[in-house]
């Protein structure tokens, strides 16, 4: 589904990704772990087309298309979804409006008609129950005055509603208490499906206690140094990242 080959990316003159390669197939859950500054968030940003990141080398193929050539909204409509590390507050833009506009944009792309108000509301209510969110969130501004945990839940709510093919989660566990983490994890787990790939970007192993990955990758200095199964995450938790770097440079 997603094939990243030798990806180099920079912000201004600062090189951040330095030859990153990654294969993700439908039905898989990948965790990308790494120390601060290793390029985890840059990878997520490049995949969704955030401005300010320049790709200087390499390719990203998504379902047979050159992902990098698509505008951010085209990527979203093609089924790429990023749960942001820091979701922005947008006062005055109603949460329900955003959910509906986003849902109809992806439905249109899939050749489906727009949902009417009744069907939309019953669908969104189901998903809100899953995320244990009060319906009053619908009538508030997007993320306006939401706590950190509420913002993250709102991200997963959008994800659950939009049913992406490729779900990227950027440090979704950061700043969550244990209850919120459980809710978020169960939301993500409910989305595990044979046709869907999930890529979790995370600093800590904690999230992986709740969302079990098929693959764990260690990202350091803009490249993937090591790939393993979930036991690698536990090892990282125990031993830190330095040994991976040392083994990689020794090799």
């Amino acid at each position, binding site marked *: 589904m997603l094939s990243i080959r030798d990806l180099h990316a920079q912000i201004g003159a600062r090189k951040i990704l330095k030859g990153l390669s990654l294969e993700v197939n439908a039905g898989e859950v990948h965790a990308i772990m790494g120390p601060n500054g290793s390029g985890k968030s840059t990878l997520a940003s490049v995949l969704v087309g*955030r401005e300010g990141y320049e790709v200087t080398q390499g390719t990203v193929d998504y379902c047979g298309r050159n992902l990098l050539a698509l505008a951010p*909204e085209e990527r979203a409509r093609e089924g790429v979804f990023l749960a942001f590390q820091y979701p922005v507050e947008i006062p005055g833009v109603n949460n329900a409006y*955003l959910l509906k*506009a986003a849902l109809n944009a992806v439905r249109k792309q899939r050749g489906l008609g727009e949902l009417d108000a009744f069907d939309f509301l019953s669908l969104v209510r189901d998903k809100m129950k899953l995320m244990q969110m009060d319906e009053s969130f619908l009538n508030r501004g997007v993320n306006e005055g939401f706590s950190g945990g509420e913002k993250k839940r709102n991200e997963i709510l959008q994800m659950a509603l939009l049913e992406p093919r490729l779900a990227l989660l950027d440090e979704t566990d950061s700043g969550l208490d244990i209850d919120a983490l459980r809710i978020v994890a169960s939301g993500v787990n409910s989305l595990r499906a044979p046709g869907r790939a999930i890529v979790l970007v995370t600093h800590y192993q904690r999230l992986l206690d709740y969302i079990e990955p098929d693959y764990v990758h260690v990202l350091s200095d803009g490249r993937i140094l090591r790939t393993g199964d979930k036991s690698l995450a536990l090892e990282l938790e125990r031993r830190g990242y330095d040994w991976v770097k040392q083994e990689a440079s020794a090799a």
Partner: protein
Amino acid sequence: MSEPARTTATEQYREAFETLRPALRGQPERRSAAFARFEELGFPGSRDEAWKYTNLRRLESRRFAPAIRADALCAKIVLPATLGDRRVVLVNGHLRDDLSNLRSPPSGVRIGALGEVRAHDGVAATVLRWPQGGGTERFAALNAAMSADPLLIEVERGIRCNEVLHVVLVANGAAPTMSYPRVSVRMAPDSFLRVVLHHVGDETGEHFVAAVVDAELADGAELHAYRIQAAGGRAFHIERFDVTVGAGARLAVRDSQLGSSLSRLDLNINLAGRAAEAAVTGLFIADGSRHLDTHVHIDHRGVETRSLQDYRGVAANRGRAVFNGKTVVHEGAQKSNARQSSRNLLLTQGAEIDTKPELEIYADDVQCGHGATTGQLDPAAMFYLRSRGLSEDEARSALTRAFAGAVLSRIDHAPVASLVHDELDDRLVRLMEPQS
């Protein structure tokens, strides 16, 4: 040096005044005095501080025909959808009985042209007064000299008018026409009135409108004025809007500036009595090559007076807007509360908004605050919406509506609110179209 130029610029107005004078009703000596004042002040010079960002040379160089009563009374008018319970229509400043509903007004409310309403003497004398001072006194004087049918709305003591008046002020004519619509509102103690002041005009006419609105709120009166400036896209619209607010009286102005080629509004509010209140909110949309200049001036003279000024502006393409909000808390206006805010959004490159909030305080026991911002849409918010599948245009529209929504939500008269919402949406759609 400037004397001959001024004479040339005002000459056509002298001719128009001479043409109209025989048909003008009421107080000829006052009309003459007003015209003399206009001639004395002339058009603003290039160094006039009140016209720093608005150049009237284009207006000065244009020729306009005077609005003849016979023409105004038979002109075919396409009226806007009704926004109230009772409509009153002035065409080029002339009252159109046939388009207005003046029969059986609500009890305690009188509506009509000066000279026709049974206004008591004191009131009649005040209607042709022109407000002194400021950058628009010249145009207010010009209006006082030539206004054909000053519309007088009087509400008696204790009367709460449950009808919303929709006053439509139309600029019309095959040739570019000058007109001087005038609305005077006199509210007796403890009266209540809601009025929509709706300026419209044909889209192609290069007309000049010098409008005057003046309102007096006696103690305990309450006026809600919904102003819609939807002049034709080639029109010059200059307006002087003065309100005196008595003790315990309340004024709400909801201003929406949508039209014209060039417009100027001077809104002057005098909080004269103890605990007088004014809340003024507005939205202006300077798109295309529109130039919108707004000066709001609020004087706190009474103790415990309160004012709120909240304007939001949107500019795009070659649009240009100027906002000057000034609040003065005079000596002795203790325990007053004044807040002002001016927030502005530039949607495209080339657009420009100049804003200048000013607060002058001469009393020591007051609460005041002001703020002004001019900026573009938040790129992080734009990206967030696009990352959810909204197109760039949809994202821009959603964020612009959100920006304007903060003042539009204050329009507590639904027909006006929905008109302005629709107009904003329409402009946003047109903005997205490729520029020719």
